[in-house]
């Protein structure tokens, strides 16, 4: 049972809507709900009370329940009262004098997260009994809870705070010594655990065991002394540990990276896409005043469910590296975009066919790659992109570490076998056939291009975000943007076209590549292009066969699948 569900299983484009429905009542209001709804693995199973209430727009507070984890039923926050139609000896409903079915109220409450609804059921979530049960659970959760809110990272997005405010009592009866448990425990290299804040919902355990397939976490001791722990001598260290921080409804699990660095209510959350591999996990970028503080996963059943990998999540530090390229330089001298563009275009205009080489990065957006393919066509250039491989895993991380390999292929910047043309480009630079080289976001020297051969070029244009051997040789050095600093779309390995949005402004003079590329294309071809990204996307979609029919707005937050 405890196998890691491969990402592809979790995904699928959603479960087909169940056609069969049943009628129930929630707090007296009749609603028709699907008879089955997806369970944590997406399998249709009888709809639970909690799902039915959500369907009816009624909130049932919960801690341990998570739509993508097996149900545990341990927090008891979701207890509701309910009744079912009374049945006569003939198994037919007994009717009231007014013709309505007679409802027998259950003497015992039920947990909404695990109890299926049945036809005619009545669910009550706002009775004095239910309110008392919630207040009771909250009181129990709080008696041994430290009053850490002022120093707790979770404050502001803490379910304990929220529910205590909504459903709790304002005073405490508790007069005993609290149970003290370990604080600031290093569960693993990226996770710090505060046992006193833990409400033992076991979300972290279930995620690690049932989604990742790692039995690293468990509970030691019993009763009120129960504590989350790793097996002795074992660290909590898989590539998905930080998801437990998101899952933890309180501040018990904290990210070593984010801990104590920023109050969450100051963060601006921008929907984006993780650029660290071809899966293209949907994320939110948490930033404040131009600085990124964290990435968190954004649910998308078709891609990453509710998760992302630790590697992708923490791969943002380079964005704020002090050596970021921030200035336009012409032959080592600081210059301006206008001057550089003028001079570059002047040379490109007169370049003879076949004398231009183009090396692009599959980390650029679809729009940028498309603009580059337009340049390529205009200049009859030889072009390619650089493959980037790593080790993949069964859950999310893909061996293709480029976020937009498919985009590079579909726009025609490279062939299906990305990188196949690179040796030819290096060769033609060496033989002098290629006189002008345009490099976007790659270090061609690292990819095997002879550094000395670059010195023979008439013009070397390099656009990048960080310095490297190739940028050092550039005649024209153009500061580019990290994906977090611009908007655009990536096409993931499965062909899902997904939007990302600028979270922070680029540093210094750096400009989104699509902006100046659109200008270059216009100036070289005379064709006018939209000056804004949505328009550019729509133009691209009308010209690139694979993207035909897509529009920027229709992509929405979850993207659209195209055939690859």
């Amino acid at each position, binding site marked *: 049972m405890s196998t890691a569900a491969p990402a592809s299983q979790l995904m699928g484009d959603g479960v087909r809507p169940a056609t069969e429905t049943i009628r129930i009542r929630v707090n007296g209001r009749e609603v028709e709900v699907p008879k089955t709804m997806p369970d944590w693995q997406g399998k249709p199973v009888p709809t639970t009370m909690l799902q039915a209430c959500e369907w009816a727009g009624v909130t049932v507070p919960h801690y341990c329940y998570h739509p993508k984890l097996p149900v545990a039923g341990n*927090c008891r926050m979701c207890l509701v009262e309910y009744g079912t139609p009374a049945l006569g000896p003939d198994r037919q409903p007994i009717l009231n004098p007014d013709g309505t079915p007679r409802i027998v109220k259950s003497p*015992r409450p039920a947990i909404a997260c695990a109890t299926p609804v049945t036809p005619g059921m009545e669910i009550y979530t706002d009775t004095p009994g239910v309110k008392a049960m919630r207040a009771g659970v909250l009181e129990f959760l709080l008696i041994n809870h430290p009053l850490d809110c002022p120093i707790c990272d979770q404050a502001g997005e803490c379910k304990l705070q929220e529910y205590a405010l909504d459903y709790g009592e304002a005073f405490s009866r508790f*007069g005993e010594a609290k149970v003290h448990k370990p604080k600031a425990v290093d569960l693993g290299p990226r996770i710090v655990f505060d046992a006193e804040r833990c409400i033992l919902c076991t979300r972290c355990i279930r995620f690690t065991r049932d989604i990742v397939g790692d039995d690293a976490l468990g509970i030691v001791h*019993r009763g009120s002394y129960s504590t989350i722990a790793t097996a002795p001598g074992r660290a909590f260290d898989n590539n998905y540990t930080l998801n437990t921080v998101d899952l933890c409804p309180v501040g018990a699990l904290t990210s070593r990276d984010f801990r104590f660095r920023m109050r969450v209510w100051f963060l601006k959350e921008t929907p984006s896409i993780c650029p660290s591999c071809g899966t293209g996990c949907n994320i939110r970028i948490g930033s404040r005043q131009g600085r990124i503080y964290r990435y968190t996963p954004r649910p998308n059943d078709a891609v990453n469910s509710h998760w992302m990998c630790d590697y992708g999540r923490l791969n943002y530090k380079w964005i704020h590296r002090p050596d970021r390229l921030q200035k336009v330089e012409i032959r080592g001298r600081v210059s301006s975009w206008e001057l550089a563009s003028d001079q570059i275009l002047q040379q490109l205009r007169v370049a003879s066919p076949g004398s231009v080489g183009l090396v692009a990065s599959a980390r650029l957006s679809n729009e940028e790659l498309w603009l580059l393919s337009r340049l390529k066509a205009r200049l009859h250039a030889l072009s390619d992109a650089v493959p980037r491989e790593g080790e993949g895993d069964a859950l999310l991380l893909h061996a293709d570490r480029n976020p937009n390999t498919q985009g590079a292929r579909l726009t025609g910047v490279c062939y299906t076998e990305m990188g196949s043309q690179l040796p030819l480009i290096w060769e033609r630079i060496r033989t002098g056939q290629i006189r002008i080289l345009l490099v976007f976001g790659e270090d061609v020297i690292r990819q095997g291009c002879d550094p000395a051969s670059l010195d023979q070029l008439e013009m070397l244009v390099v656009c990048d975000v960080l310095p490297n051997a190739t940028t050092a040789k550039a005649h024209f050095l153009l500061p580019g943007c990290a994906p977090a600093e611009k908007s655009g779309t990536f096409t993931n390995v499965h062909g899902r076209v997904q939007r990302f949005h600028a979270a922070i402004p680029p540093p210094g003079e750096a400009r989104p590549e699509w902006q100046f590329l659109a200008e270059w294309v216009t100036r070289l071809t005379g064709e006018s292009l939209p000056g804004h990204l949505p328009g550019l996307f729509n133009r691209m979609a009308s010209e690139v066969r694979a993207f035909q029919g897509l529009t920027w707005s229709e992509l929405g937050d979850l993207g659209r699948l195209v055939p690859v």
Partner: protein
Amino acid sequence: MPAEYRLILKHALEPGYTPDLACYLRHGGYETLRKGLTLPPRTLPDGRSLSPQEQIREEVVKSGLRGRGGAGFPCGLKWSFVDRRSGKPIYLICNADESEPGTFKDRQIIYRDPHQLLEGMILACFANDVHLGFIYIRGEFTEGARILERALAEARDHGLLGKNILGTGYDLDILVHRGAGAYICGEETGLIESLEGKRPYPRIKPPYFPAVLGLYLCPTIVNNVETLCNIKHIVAMGGSEFAKIGTPNNTGTRLVSLSGHVRRPGCYEIETGKVTLGELIFDPAFGGGLREGRQLQAVIPGGVSAKVFRAGERVSLRRRGLDGKEVVEERDVLDLPYDFDTLIAAGSMSGSGAVIVIDDSVSMVDVLANISAFFAHESCGQCTPCREGSLWMAKILKRLASGRGRPRDAEDLLHIADNIPGGRTICAFGDACSWPVQSTVSKFKEQFLARGAEGEPYRKVAQPAATSVARLSGTGGGAHPAASALASSVSTAS
């Protein structure tokens, strides 16, 4: 004259009776097994034919046998829930965890007459098409586990277990699994988790009803040791004959574990409902009364989870008379017949059959503090109300018992205890830990209020608590009432 009625303990208590197979066979052992396994198919008036398995199941239904593990659930009904069409193996587990405080009946059978359990269990397995059974035995019963292993080996050697039992073609093996010492392993779904090698966290129902999704998510029956022994007697004498023992709906015998302040504590077998609580305590055939000069204060009728009765308490029983009309009778608790239904109607339960007698030499505050400490220690910690509530109550009671009480403690205890039971928790432990508190505090409130008031001077003199404990116990003085109470509690605790 009330008297013991020995059905299950018929031979076990005889002098010279030994737990080995030879002795059991000399006493007619395993004849019922042969009978059960070789029952000829019976044809019903409508032409349907009943297999031997179905016949045994039908006899169990007719017998009216109710589970002896605590809940008193009808055994035949439980078996009828088993999903027999899943295509998965069906498992049967004998619950030999016996850990409800005050209960010491299953061990009489295991230690003295293990083959009777095996015979009943093999029949129960046969009746339910089980080919692998387990005896989950409490970890502390080391010798009991050894005795069972020996008995199982003997049974295997004699073709009573294993392949082709008694030449009938029926295969069954039974394995002994030792617990590691947790009360919650007695709860059937906790037990199943434990048997699977995990922490004994009781499972949520729905969906994990053992009859459908039990051990390894296969249909599973969990029955108590005493329940399974009864299967043998039901097959031997027939369900209707068995139903004549005891009283209607409360058939057969009960093994009563009588303990506490009586002259003759011990395990007594009675016809269910034919002996009253008072007789169990005072009759010379049973408890033989209290010690010299003592007055009865309270009785816990079914293990510490059961709600306590106060001596002299009168309970109103609603029952349906012979004419079908409901009659309300008022009775003294001591006149309550010891059976399932009456004790439930009286607001408590016969539970595991453990009767704990408490005289006036102890304070009910101390009794409850002891019980609550047990539950706080044994809560598995899975669900919020029980995990936090059990320890909270135990802490209040410990403080109260040590003389540092507050007048409001009684109210607080009731408030906490009201927030745990009645379906708010995953398993019945939530009820088990709060019922004693609810009943003891409300029925003996004056004792709790008095203890709470005792803490008053202490609070005025000494604060904060932690430092003053050291100081007061260090002086060894006895002048201050609160201080001495505290000093004694400190010395017992250390």
